[in-house]
Each structure stands twice: as C-alpha cells, then as structure tokens.
C-alpha cells in the first residue's frame, strides 16, 4: 500500500515541481545577467495561459502533429516516474531500468522530431535534423554511463543502484567521478541547455528544440514545454539520486522518511538548478560542428569509467 502511495506521490511531484525548477533557473540567470527577472512561479502562469488559449494547427499538419505533444509528454512523464526522487519505496520501480529510461527519452525525442518535420516548414526540419544528430551522440554516452553504473552496483534498476550506494556499497570511486561528469554532459545535451542549445532563444538560426516546436500553440505548446521541464527535473533526480542519495526515503521509514526525502530532494534540486544557471551564464553556446567533440568526450568519459572499474577490481 505504501509503495502505491509513494508512486502516486512521485507521479504528481515531478509534474508539480518541474515548472518551479525551470522558473528558478530562469530567475537566477536573470539576476546574474543584471536583470530583475520574473518570479519563479512564472512558468506555472505561462502554462495556465497556454492551456486557456486556442490551439492553432497548420493546414498541412497530419495527425502526427496533433498526437506528438501527448506522446512526448507521456513518455517523459513515464520516464520521470521510475527515477526515485524522494523515496525508493515505489510500486513501479521494478518495472523499468536505466535502459528503458534511455528508450523512453528516445521515444519522446523521436516524436518531437517527427512533429517538427510534419508541417513542412524549413525551421522544423532543420531542428529535427540537428536534434537527431545530438541524439545519435548523446544516447551512446548515456548508455555507457548506465553500463558503468550497472557494473559497479550489479543492477540496471535506478532504485536498486540508489539503495546499493546508500548502503555504502561503493566508496569514493574514480569510475563514479568519471560517470558523474559524463552524465552531466549528457544531461546538458538532452535538455538543450547552453552550450548545446539555448533554451531562451526564439527565432534564431542556431536553435534546436525551439525550432521543432515553433508551429505549436495553445495546449499543444503547453505540453511540449511541460515535457521539457519534466525532463530537466528527471535528470536532476537522476544525478542527485545516484551521486548524492543521502536523505532519500527507504521502505519502512513511513511518512517521516518520505518528508525528509522530500526536503532532501528539494535541496538537491535547488543546488543543481542554481549551479546550472551559473554554468549557463558563464559559458557561450558552441558551434554545431563541435557537438561531436563535446558528446564524444562524454562517451569517452563513460568508457574511461568502465576501464577504471577493471583497474580497481584488479588491484
């Protein structure tokens, strides 16, 4: 019963919290740029406003265009449900693992790219082609990180990995450090943050994600933007959960454990979101042709993490 409650809480928490995290990142970035910035609650208002508006669909659009926001949001939401945020006591936890997570994110990306191409505008196709290029580089890196984490803990389930690390199954390991850096690089690419893509841009030749959702309006746009926010929350939960699992609620601790876990999760998100804002302010967007170097670097770091795993085993 508790596991069901934990799962339900998780399902609603990720969606409820996602706009706040995005709003916080935007606020910190504005302050760092010397602007006052909107309240961190602004994304909630934006989504509410978009939901009130009429959804305009182009004449040339097929059913793919209309279905894509729902499929994308559902896939990302489902992916976010299997990454423990505040408790590991979850009903759906055994149902999926890190490989399934990569697949779900891939489904979301595939549909977004299809929608980008469906209307037939130049920007959509351009964004879709770039998104696929980034995906072809980021996915192997993400899988490599999953493999090294699984080799360390002996399981691919994120919940099991977190429990393993929480029990002190792994110390300060070189492989973990390398996997962390690689995962952060992948997270930056997957979420379309600077230096890969600029989330604040609109109508610019270098945009990737915005180019694909350019034709959307109303509730469709709200779902697409919501999917992006939930994806950011998902990666924060993944990084914060695996590399700093302290405070997360475990089965048997009841409501108190869940509350402590919730506080710890909020604190982790706060730290990660602030760090992301600082990082994005300090760095410039890179050229499209350098993506391969950046994400190739992430892949090689994942590979190095696996290599060093064998060293520490041999020693």
């Amino acid at each position, binding site marked *: 019963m508790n596991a069901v409650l934990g799962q339900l809480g998780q399902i609603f928490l990720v969606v409820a919290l996602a706009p706040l995290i995005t709003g916080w990142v935007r606020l910190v970035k504005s302050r760092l740029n010397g602007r006052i910035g909107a309240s961190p609650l602004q994304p909630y208002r934006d989504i509410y406003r978009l939901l009130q508006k009429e959804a305009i669909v182009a004449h040339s659009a097929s059913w793919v265009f209309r279905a894509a926001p729902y499929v994308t949001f559902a896939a990302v939401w489902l992916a976010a449900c299997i990454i423990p945020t505040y408790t590991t006591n979850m009903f759906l936890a055994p149902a999926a693992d890190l490989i399934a997570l990569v697949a779900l994110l891939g489904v979301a990306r595939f549909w977004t790219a299809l929608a980008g191409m469906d209307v037939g505008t130049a920007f959509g196709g351009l964004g879709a082609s770039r998104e696929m290029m980034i995906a072809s580089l980021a996915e192997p890196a993400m899988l490599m990180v999953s493999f090294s984490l699984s080799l360390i803990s002996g399981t691919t389930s994120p919940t099991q990995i977190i429990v393993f690390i929480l029990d002190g199954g792994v110390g*300060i390991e*070189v492989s973990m450090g390398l996997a962390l850096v690689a995962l952060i690089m992948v997270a930056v690419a997957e979420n379309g943050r600077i230096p890969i893509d600029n989330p604040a841009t609109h109508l610019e030749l270098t945009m990737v994600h915005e180019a694909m959702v350019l034709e959307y309006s109303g509730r469709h746009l709200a779902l697409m933007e919501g999917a992006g926010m939930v994806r950011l929350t998902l990666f924060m939960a993944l990084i914060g959960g695996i590399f700093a699992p302290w405070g997360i609620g475990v089965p048997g601790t009841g409501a108190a454990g869940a509350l402590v876990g919730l506080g710890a999760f909020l604190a982790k998100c706060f730290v990660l979101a602030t760090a992301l804002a600082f990082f994005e302010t300090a760095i410039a967007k890179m050229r499209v042709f350098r993506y391969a170097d950046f994400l190739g*670097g992430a892949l*090689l770091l994942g590979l190095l993490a696996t*290599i060093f795993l064998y060293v*520490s085993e041999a020693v």
Partner: protein
Amino acid sequence: MPISQLSYEMAHLIGAAVLMAGFQLLYQRRLFAVLNTFAFQAVALAAAAAWQAHIQNAPHLYITAGLALVFKAMIVPFALHWLVEKLGIHRTVETAMSIGWTMMAGVALVALSILLVLPVTVNAAALTRESLALAMSVVLLGLLMMITRHNAVTQVVGFMALENGLILAAVSAKGMPLVVEISIAFSVLVAMTLFGIFFFRIRERFDTLDLNDLETYRGDRQ
C-alpha cells in the same frame, strides 16, 4: 601507519582530476583556454601532493605541493599568458588533428598504461599501483599533446603536462627525496625561460609559431 580505505579513494579521485585535466587539454583549442586548463591541472597536482603528504605523514611533500602551486599553477601560466599576448597569437585556433580522434587516442593510451602498469607492479601496494597507472596516463597524454599540436606554445604546455605526470608518479611512490623534486621544479622554470626566448627567436626568424612551417623550411635556398 596504516592507510585507510577512504584515503586511498581520495588519492585516486584527485589523481583522476589531474587525468581529466589532461583530457581537457587535448579537447581545448584556444590558447588561453589551454593555459587555464593547465593551471587547473597544476592546482589538482598540488592537491594530490598535499593529500599524499597528509596520508603518508611525509611533511616534505607539502613543499612539493607548494612548489607545484607557485611555479606551475601561477608563474608558468602567467608567463605563457604574457608571452601569448606579447606575440599577439591569442586568437589562434588550432586545427591540428580532429579533436575526436585525439581523444580516442587518449583513451587508448590510458588503457595501454593500465595494461602496462598493473602487471609490472604486482608486488607494490595497491595505492601506488592505481596512482602509477593514473600518472603514466597523464605522461602519455602530455606526449600525445606534443605530437598532435602544431603551435609551439601548446607543445610546451604538453611538455609541462607530461612533467606534471612525472611529479604525480613521484609523490605517490614512497621515499622520493625532496632534492629531486626541487631540482625538477627549477629545471621546469629554466626550461620555461628558454622556451620563452625560443618563441621570440622562432617568431623573429620565421614569422610564425606553427612548427609545421618549419619542417618544410630549407634555409635561404629556395
């Protein structure tokens, strides 16, 4: 004094930071970014030396850490910065070998050094073995950087990074006499001065710091 597991792990993690900086050096293309990364590597090296001094209870390693911090993290990067500005080459973007291939070669070299160090040091203590593998990787990455770069300044940075690897190896092995480290530190400074003079000489003579142009140079005969 028995060394705890945590001390081992911290030492390896700092060593890995030095290695990461080595990879970052291969990845960076702009001269100032390379110099900043090199300074970061030296800071990580100083941290590694200080940590070894702490866990081995060897106070003289603190001097090594101080030397690394003052000479390699401050004086050498500042001097190179000044040189690059003086020579007016700070906008140079290097396109020697593709970064992707260089990084892949780097990973292969790390695997090679692990395969080499682990069987050779079967009898050594665990702490020394993994640290030696890390240090050897840093040395090989420095060599790789010297091979794949055209510009004289980045080649010098590659040489200094190689030397960082040597110091990393020296501090993780017990009983390295201090006099050796001090002499290494000073020879690096001397080398630095000589390189500086050579930069100006090469520039004056050939109007470039790209060493590829020197290979085809046939003197005054055309």
